Each structure stands twice: as structure tokens, then as C-alpha cells.
């Protein structure tokens, strides 16, 4: 059984065992606008929670994507190299960004569940 958590930086992490798949939320892609480039900056590296791991560039600006938990970035979604716009069209499924080991599962408790996240973005609007 997997479970999905959300960060205040508008990332989701779907956790299955000790592995997490990370992406940006639909709200995040709306805010970023048309995404034209994405790249991983910390592939195969051990990172701490909230470290920047990847960069997405929209027409207007570059934005960091952060690690929602501490762990090792083990995989990058190659699809984004050629089709970064997938982050706009399907951010929660085929537009996942990277996979990370969940080294400190207790950190997940600091994240939000979907209901809490939806409430969080309502307050931002």
C-alpha cells in the first residue's frame, strides 16, 4: 500500500516501503505556468530534507524543487528531458520528477495529507 504526502513547497511524495516518488502538485504547475525545461541537479546524491534537488524553468523564471524528505536521489524521470511540458499536463502521474529513498520515515509526519494540503492551498488563494 502506498501513501501520498504533500509539502508546503507544493510537492507530493508517494511512499511505498522505503522508496518515495516525488512530483509537483497541480497547484504548483498552475503557478509556474508553461514549463519549458527541467533538470535534476542532485542525482545519485544524498540530500537532506528541503535541499534543492531539481530545477524547473517556466517561460518566466527558474524554480527549485526540494526534497520533501532526507534520502538518496536514485532516479530522475527521463521523460522530462524531452517533454518538460508533462509537468503541466500530468504533474501527479507521468510527470513525476524524481525517486528518493526515505531514510528517515519520521519526517513524513511533518508533511500534510491530501485533505490538509487542499485546505492549505485554499488559504493561499
Amino acid at each position, binding site marked *: 500500500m502506498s501513501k501520498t504526502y504533500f509539502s508546503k513547497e507544493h510537492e507530493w511524495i508517494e511512499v511505498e516501503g522505503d522508496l518515495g516518488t516525488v512530483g509537483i502538485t497541480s497547484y504548483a504547475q498552475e503557478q509556474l*505556468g*508553461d514549463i*519549458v*525545461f527541467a*533538470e535534476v*541537479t542532485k542525482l545519485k546524491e544524498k540530500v537532506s530534507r528541503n535541499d534543492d534537488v531539481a*530545477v524547473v*524553468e*517556466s*517561460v*518566466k*523564471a*527558474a524554480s527549485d524543487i526540494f526534497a520533501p524528505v532526507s534520502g538518496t536521489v536514485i532516479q530522475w524521470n527521463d521523460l522530462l*528531458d524531452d517533454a518538460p511540458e508533462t509537468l503541466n499536463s500530468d504533474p501527479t502521474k507521468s510527470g513525476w520528477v524524481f525517486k528518493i529513498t526515505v531514510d528517515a520515515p519520521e519526517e513524513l509526519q511533518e508533511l500534510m495529507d491530501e485533505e490538509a494540503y487542499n485546505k492549505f492551498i485554499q488559504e493561499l488563494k
Partner: protein
Amino acid sequence: MPQIKLDKTPLEMFHKEHGATMVEFAGYSMPLQYQLGIKGEHLHTRSKSGLFDVSHMGQIRLKGVSVLKDLESLVPSDLQSLEVGAMRYTVFTNESGGILDDLIVTRGDGYALLVLNAASKVAGLELLQENLDCEIELMTGSALLALQGPGSVKILNELVPGVEKLFFLQSAEFTFLGSPITVSRSGYTGEDGFEVSIPKSDVRKFAEILLNDPDVALVGLGARDALRLEAGLCLYGQDLSKDVTPVEASLSWVISKRRREEGNFPGFGPIKEQLVSGIKKRRVGILPLGKAPARAGCEIILDGGRKIGSITSGGYSPTLERPIAMGYVEELFSKIGTEVLLLVRGKYLPAKIVDLPFVNTKYFRQ
């Protein structure tokens, strides 16, 4: 947290009603983008017609018998030869030849109209007041709209008959609902298009009528920036500043032959020296060869590691579907085709020096 009160254009509510994302720009609340998004608005402008609110810009009217001659004391261009209705792009320079602002001057009948950047309009107004002995009016009662793109001429001519007769950089007076408006064939996108100075009280109605045409879409500052970069046009504060001269900015063409001989403008000495002996740095187009955009501030490096300049404007070109940029490099390496490296997030990315513009301009010239 102290609240900074932003100025608003007369279309503030109109923008919000049309789903704009508003941002602060030069002290104004301005639309960054609408529902269509930056890319969509950009491509719409290139293929049909985009409507821009540029009321934040400084519109100044100068009145006096010798106003163009007097104004020449602040800029290196030939203004006296302008015919009534003709417009000219020029720059205010300081004593070292640095650029204080770029502006458009229009010769009216017995007056001149200036359009200054929003961020520098207060300084520009002071500069004019200190140096010119004429009537100077900041036209706070007027809004400014731009309608840009290949469909614009037909659409605007239906609303304001006669504008189709204007050529690029020509301006004339018209009326809308009985109010005087000034329409010029000009803009900041590289497309054929118009700019309309109109009383604030009429601007909403005017914008609504234009927007009723299915070929017209509202366009925000995001697309405006990408459009002007594709057209190789400078943004003051990024590509132009008091630290560069018009010669270094590849704008020597604004300095007319007569003014090169006569001088009588701030910074004539240093500028003349550069025209004769050359310059050390120059504004050029830069084409990153990969997919990663290189933004303003990014260092330009030679293979071997020596820094030769930096990018002043850079981003993604929706028209070319690739990154584009411009910046300053040492004159020695400014030749078209020169291979350089761009330092982006610690990586050296290949790029080359290219000619501007990136996208051919489509001005309706005489």
C-alpha cells in the same frame, strides 16, 4: 509588515475580471499573464493580435517653440529633422555617456510627446524640468494601450478609421467617442502594431470593444518580455543602464551624423572617443545551443575559463521553442559565430554569439 501601496492603471479591475495574475512592476500593479498563459499569449500576438495595457509608462508632453532643439541637449539623436507625426527612438545620456533611460519622441504640431519607462519616469521628468525651459506635462490623465500582431491593423482600423494609413513610427490624432486619442504605429514586440494614448475615462470602453474581436487576446508583461527579447529590443534596467553607452549597447544608430559632428549632448566626449577608437564591450545576441534557458546575470565564459561578459536578458523563446538571450561580451569576442560557454548552475553550457533579432521584425515601413 508594512504594506507598500502600488499604483494602479485605470484597467486594474478589468485585468482582474479577465483572470489576470497581478504582479508588482515599477511600483505598479500590473498583469503578468491572463488565463491563456505566457506562451499562449505570446504565440497569439505573433499570429493574430495581442492587447497590452502599458499605462504604467511615462507619457510626457513638452510644449514650446524650440522644444525639439532644446530636447537635443539631452539625447544624441537628430530630433529637429523629424516631421510632424514622426517618431524616433533615442536615449537620455549622462556626462560619461551612460544611458539614463531609453524613450520614444514624437513630434507633434508645436509640441513633443515622450514615452519613458515606468521605473524612470520620475527621474526623467526631473531631468527635463532641470534642463528645459518649456512647458512640461506628465500626462496623468491618459492611459496607454498597445495592439500588436499581424491582425491588429484591420481590427484597429474598424474602430479608428484611418490608422491603416500610418507607417511604422508615425503617429496621428484621431477621435474615439468624441475624445481625442493619439495613435502611433509602433510597439515593443517586433510585430506590426499600434500604441494608443487615450483618456483614462475612455480606456475601458476602448479595450472592451477591441476584446470583442475573437482575434484579440489580452497579453501580460510575461509575454511582453519574451516578445521584445525575440525582437532584440532592450529593456532598461537589464540591457541598458548608466554603466553602458549607446555605442556599447549596439545602439550607435541612434546617434545621427549631425550630432556626431556637433555634439552638444551629455557624454559627447566619451561617446565620440568610442565611435573613433572603439569599445571594450558590446551588446550581442546569445544563442544557448542546449535546452536550458540562461537567465540575466549568467556569466559568459571562454573555453579555458576566462569570463568575457554576462547575460542581461535571457529566457525561452516560444516562437523558436528554444532558449535565447542577449548580453555584453568583450568586443574581441563579439563576432557573430563566436563559440562561448554559459555558466548555469555550475555547469558550462555551449552557446554562440548571434545576430539580433532572433525573430524577424515585421514593421510596416514606408
